[in-house]
């Protein structure tokens, strides 16, 4: 039996993939270079700006936003002040700013790509049937697998980090956009149609506003996923808090690892609560 299995030579899967990637990187290298350089400049610019803000001002700003976003409750605001001060105090401020930049870029790109795909899915059952398994596949894949194509296309640094994060963080926004639009009550869709709305009018005036809070829930998840991926992306040279965790890990420095890890948790809690309360605000 095993002879029969052995009689078939190893299928050249790895080679094939490699060839495809070579071809891709070869033929599109100007594009990849452009994205790599442009992205890097843009992100360094944003990080530079963030770092230039005096930490006190920054902390108070976040606290103020938290205060108003949570309907004038003090909880999150106080947590933000204490938490951000802790990060500053531990000398991880610049790393935090790097992480913020990465998360912002990755999330925004994921949202810009994800919402239209979600809309497409909600409008076409064929598109849904094709995209859904792809999303399932993407979500079962361990995050660091995305680092491989990222490195192949862009080398190492922030840009491949963002690239991998975008892919990793994309599914929730797509799914929730699709779900939100499909959940709009049938009678309201009929109302929109019966008054002679065009497809765009229906989408913009009825469906998206009604799907808003569902889409926001997806965006919240996307932001958190992109944060977790940004940490993993430190393996390919993305800067930020993740890199601190990674280096502590490599050197078995439990104390440093704990400090950086706790900083990440603090930051994650702040952005989670912030995006969630933005969602609740109107409804």
């Amino acid at each position, binding site marked *: 039996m095993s002879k029969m299995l052995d009689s078939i030579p190893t299928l050249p899967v790895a080679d094939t993939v490699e060839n495809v990637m070579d071809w891709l990187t070869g033929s599109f290298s100007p594009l990849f270079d452009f994205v790599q350089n442009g992205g890097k400049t843009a992100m360094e610019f944003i990080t530079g700006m963030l770092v230039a803000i005096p930490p006190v001002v920054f902390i108070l700003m976040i606290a103020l936003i938290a205060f108003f976003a949570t309907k004038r409750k003090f909880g999150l605001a106080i947590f933000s002040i204490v938490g951000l001060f802790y990060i500053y105090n531990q000398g991880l401020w610049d790393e935090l700013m790097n992480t913020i930049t990465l998360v912002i870029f990755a999330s925004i790109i994921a949202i810009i790509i994800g919402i239209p795909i979600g809309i497409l899915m909600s409008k076409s059952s064929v598109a849904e049937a094709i995209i859904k398994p792809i999303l399932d596949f993407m979500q079962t894949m361990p995050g660091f697998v995305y680092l491989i194509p990222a490195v192949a296309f862009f080398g190492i640094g922030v840009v491949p980090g963002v690239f991998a994060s975008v892919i990793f963080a994309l599914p929730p926004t797509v799914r929730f956009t699709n779900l939100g639009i499909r959940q709009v009550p049938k*009678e*309201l869709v*009929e*109302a*929109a*149609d*019966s*008054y*002679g*709305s*065009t497809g765009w*009018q229906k989408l913009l*005036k*009825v469906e998206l*506003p*009604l799907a*808003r809070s569902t889409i926001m829930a997806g965006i919240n998840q996307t932001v958190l996923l992109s944060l977790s991926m940004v940490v993993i992306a430190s393996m390919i040279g993305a800067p930020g808090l993740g890199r601190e965790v990674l280096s502590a890990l490599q050197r078995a420095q439990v104390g440093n690892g704990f400090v950086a890890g706790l900083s990440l948790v603090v930051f994650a809690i702040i952005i989670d609560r912030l995006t969630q309360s933005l969602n609740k605000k109107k409804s």
Partner: protein
Amino acid sequence: MEKIKVQHVTKIFGKHITNALKLVEEKKSKTEILEKTGATIGVYDANFTVNEGEIFVIMGLSGSGKSTLVRLLNNLIETTSGSIYIDGEDISKMNKQQLRKIRREKMSMVFQNFGLFPQRTVLANTEYGLEVRGIPKEERRLKAEKALDNAGLLPYKDQYPSQLSGGMQQRVGLARALANDPDILLMDEAFSALDPLIRKEMQDELLDLQQKVKKTIIFITHDLNEALRIGDRIALMKDGKIIQIGTGEEILTNPANDYVKTFLEDVDRSKVLTVENAMIRPITVNIELDGPKVALQRMREEEVSVLLAIDKKRAFKGYITADDALEAAKRGEKSVVSFLKTDMPTVPKDMLIQDVLGLISESPTPIAVVNENKLVGVLIRGVVIQSLASETEGVTKDE
């Protein structure tokens, strides 16, 4: 003048349409067709015309295809075959743009659950039709405010639908439709979600409106009373087919009995007539005071042959018949108790009529209606049937 003309319109949901069509022609039932082909008959071979300024009511059991039929009229659902003419133009042959124009300018729809957009204010909801037509902001605002004013809702224009009562929400739904100034109103069970009092009010308003602006209205309901009250003509549907079209009078006098029963099965249980609506005043004899002679005297006076027996507290005790009373009187008895009969069924006054129909048709005697043991009325077969047909005229109400 003919406003809407529906010719041989059929709508079948699902696949295997030709198979399903063949089976319908073989007079197979809807469920049988569904089992065999997986296709559902929505509407089959509908034919009718609606004249300008008419209120045309479509009624039938749940699932009989009313909603489907009305949605075929504005092409929210596409016909499988047949033609629908609006002002002489066949909408099943129109392209998207022409259809939108018809929907925007000629017909507006009012929905059972109001179909208001929750994130828009009352005013913004009312403006919706004008907005998608691209009417300038100022103008559409004026028109919408006027429509709201007519509905008496102008003060609420900045509220959200969820802040209004059901009746008010449906007035907004109607105002939104009228703001467009359409020729045709499509109303799918527009008043079914409202409580009876508000519902009657809305029916009146619709009739007033009809007097004033002469819209052509397609009104769907499964409530016979509502249909009779507002419909110029009524079409009855069953399993996707229109089985009768006529004025209320024609429909009632023609095959009345069977149909009345069918409607009853259909009617939303919570909103149907109760026993109280159909009962009449009982002619009574008091077993603690009255003797056979008084009873006979009262029977002559009221021209009845049966009296319902009660005690001083109006508790129901049974009934006596004229024959028995006559004999007892001859024997010189002083009390009616000796020939009191107790085999008359009783029902509580708030029971639904549809639930006592079986009892009514089986019981040889009338049925006593009680409320906490006190006699409050009596159900008589003929009167019940009549009241189902004409409750709105108030003929049978007798306190």
